[in-house]
């Protein structure tokens, strides 16, 4: 099943009106990812070599462990599959945000210390240069 363009347009309108920053819809054979910024809805890039790690839930986005002063993975560093590259703080709990593949952490997309929601883009990963 693929979504007809009319549905994508309608979903975009809902997203623009909702105040949410991102929407992700998965179904058999379809994967829709939209981003909203001040009423403008744009499709997020299709998963390619460049990968965006999104938030697994609602919480405070941290790039540094609360006890430490250096980031878990600084921008430009090489990260391994499964490595904890950021944290999501939910009150007393800390959830890991892990690298989905060996890659280079190219950019931190969300503001560290801010509350993020499910699907908020957090980090951008690039393939490790050949």
């Amino acid at each position: 099943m693929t979504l007809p363009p009319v549905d994508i347009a309608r979903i975009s309108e809902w997203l623009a009106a909702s105040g949410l920053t991102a929407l992700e819809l998965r179904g058999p054979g379809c994967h829709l990812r939209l981003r909203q910024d001040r009423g403008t809805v744009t499709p997020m890039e299709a998963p390619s070599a460049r990968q965006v790690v999104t938030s697994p839930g609602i919480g405070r986005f941290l790039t540094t462990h609360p006890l430490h002063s250096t980031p878990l993975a600084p921008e430009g560093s090489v990260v391994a599959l499964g490595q904890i590259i950021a944290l999501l703080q939910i009150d007393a709990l800390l959830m890991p945000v892990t690298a989905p593949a060996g890659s280079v952490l190219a950019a931190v997309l969300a503001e560290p210390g801010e509350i993020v929601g499910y699907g908020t883009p957090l980090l951008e990963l690039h393939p490790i240069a050949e």
Partner: protein
Amino acid sequence: MIEILSDTALATVQDLGRTGALNWGVGTSGAMDPLALAAGNLLLGNAAGDAAIEIQVFPFAVRVHADCAFALTGADCAARMDEQTLLPWWSGMARAGQTLRLGLPVATAWPASRAYLCLAGGIDVPEMLGSRSTQLRGAFGGYAGRALRQGDLLRAGRPGGDVNGFGAVPPALAMPLQQDGLPAIRVLRAAEYDRYTPASHAAFWGEAWRITPQSDRYGYRLAGPSLTPIAPIELRSHGIVPGVIQVPHGGQPIVQMRDAQPSGGYPKIGTIIEADLWRLGQAPIGSRFRFLETDWATALAARDANEAWLAGLGRLANLQRLGAAAA
């Protein structure tokens, strides 16, 4: 099952303490940082008071003989599972054949000196007089009534499993307590408080106290201004509990800690509230802190705040486990 690889004499099995046996002359023992022990247990879905290993001499290493979920809390010792570095206050899976290594406590936003290794289901040692804590003086409880040695094998109450690791924010960051730039410990006046000079009272509350190297699980000897009674005090030996601040003849106070004897004869100037004993239990030797006068109501509220923090962590950790099981 894990095997102790280090030959350090001072790691012991502890839980939240053997309360209720003081009338038989049996001290409480238990974790010097009960919040860290309870938090590690809650990350694993254990009861808050399950037994864990308290580690206070580093480096420390264990070999894993059977898969088991574990949590490490307390002092950040830059721990590694084989080559993989572990975050402090974190849980995860230990796999058979792996080696867990803890280094010296590192300088962090919260200086601490004791680490806790919790296993799923708790460390499986028999309960004695209502507790699994090691009673060193009586040589019972914990693992064979003694500190752990190289080659000791400890079993997890619930081996196996497969968990995705997550962690806790150390309570020292959630519940900071400072006074004039130093860590603070809240204290109630004790029976002989009024028998000290006004200058001693002013010094007790106003000056910083340093933890001397003559400090361990039995008690902390402090260094600071001399505390002087108005007239010499002679007392018969009487019951004491962890947290009691005694003043021997030299005028330098001693704080009774978890392995304290159940009785003593020195005069008591104050008692550290139960809710703050973990703060002192983690304070490194050589560090300085201040005593902060408090009252009964605040002491109870502080205990409630600790309980609420643990309850919140336990609830979130359970939700997390349920979510992971459903996914």
